[in-house]
């Protein structure tokens, strides 16, 4: 329980850092830190496989791409805030969401899951256990997510292709 409290505080601190830090790279690093903390939460729940995948996919691949984009586009610290009028609205919406969340939790307290129940759900957290659940019970959803990702990849590729084609046409026109 103590470890969970410490991790929760770190996780919340990391998440606040993501939205409040001015320098984009620092904000992205803060996100990496919270993703890693989440992986440690998984480890404390004995879900080692999930923790490993969390680190490899999110911290190791996706966040590196985020940082790539930030560094290559040279995003700078924002000096003047163009969306200053949004600030009070954002605070109100954020506070209302938080109140709603807390009220909801207090109203219908789900009993804390005990270790045995968690064990049966995540099947010991091993790769085999996760695979059993993923490829039997949720195989349709798994396939659909795969198709969804494929659609995204094809879409991105075709967008880049079109841009390259337009650039080529423009180049030909300039030469002609």
């Amino acid at each position, binding site marked *: 329980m103590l470890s969970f409290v410490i991790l929760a505080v770190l996780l919340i601190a990391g998440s606040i850092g993501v939205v409040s830090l001015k*320098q984009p*790279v620092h904000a992205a690093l803060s996100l990496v830190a919270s993703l890693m903390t989440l992986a440690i939460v998984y480890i404390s729940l004995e879900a080692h*496989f999930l923790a*490993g995948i969390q680190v490899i996919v999110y*911290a*190791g691949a996706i966040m*590196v791409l985020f*940082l790539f984009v930030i560094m290559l586009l040279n995003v700078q610290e924002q000096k003047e805030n163009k969306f200053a009028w949004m600030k009070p609205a954002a605070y109100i919406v954020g506070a209302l969401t938080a109140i709603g969340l807390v009220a909801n939790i207090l109203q219908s307290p789900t009993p804390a899951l005990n270790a045995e129940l968690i064990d049966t759900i995540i099947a010991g957290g*091993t*790769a085999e256990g996760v695979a059993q659940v993923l490829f039997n019970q949720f195989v349709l959803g798994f396939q659909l997510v795969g198709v969804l990702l494929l659609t995204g990849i094809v879409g991105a590729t075709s967008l880049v292709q079109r841009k390259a084609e337009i650039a080529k046409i423009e180049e030909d026109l300039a030469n002609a």
Partner: protein
Amino acid sequence: MDPWYITLIKAFLVSIALLGGFAYLTLIQRKLLGRMQHRYGPNRVGPFGLLQPIADAIKAIFKEDIVVTAADKFVYYLAPFLSISFALVAFGAIPAGPANSLFGFDPWVMDLDIGLLYVFAATSIGVYGIFLGGWASNNKYSLLGSLRSAAQMISYELGLGLSALTVILITGSLNFREIVDFNVWGMHPLLWIPLIIAFITYFISSTAEINNTPFDLPEAEQELVAGYLTEYSSIKWALYMMAEYVNLFTAAAVLSSLFLGGWRGPAFLDQVIPGISQWPLIWLLLKMAMIVFTFIWLQATLPRFRYDQVMRIGWIWLFEIALFAALLTAALIAFVV
């Protein structure tokens, strides 16, 4: 399962061993490179130059520590520590002998169910060290070097993972202990074909992953000064060098555990000295030494690839060949074995 303080002591000892190994690997590397280039290499400090690493360490500590004024201070200090700590952490899952063989203790730090994934996770975080170091230095060459490096490491992680997938499919486990225990002579002989292909692709991918020649683009000194290392001096520079050599050790240990039988010695030697193939540490260290020697040999032999060549080899050749090997393994396991 050991109590936590034993694990802590073992983690400490492994870190010390890796850092000591780093110090003397620099000497061995320079001596070997010297011999391969028809010169002696360091032989002035102490007998056979054996005190050279200590002299180098003292020099690194007492050199002026230059901090770039325009650097992003926090990230600039964080980056080398990220690099070295995740390089050290990655080694923890490698077994060096059978259970209870080292003075009654298990010769590994952690027996993880997801051993192989754990090593991949630690090395994928290690990328941040190089990547952030280059950005925080606020220098064009550093940034170019670190972007190249990150692109290279992400590209070759695919080849690495797919080659390892062949081994995972055949052994049916992610745990290094179980992978080493797998009886390779009992499997279907056809499975040797994808396994040998995967060994070759894994070897090339891990050469790229640890930035060894011919994939040493991140610090191509002729074109990028020294890449991400340019603005680092003194002990922070030394931390990066440590991380690089520790990654070399880890790559060698993973390669020998996945493909070369890990801590096991050749069984026919048991007829000469009974039980010698079960001795802890010695066989793993011997195999690691062989692989590290090969890496140094490559350094003296091959010129550096161009950047477009690196990308083409990674995405067009290694990725496809490793994917083919993994698919072949899956097909063989599903239909033949």
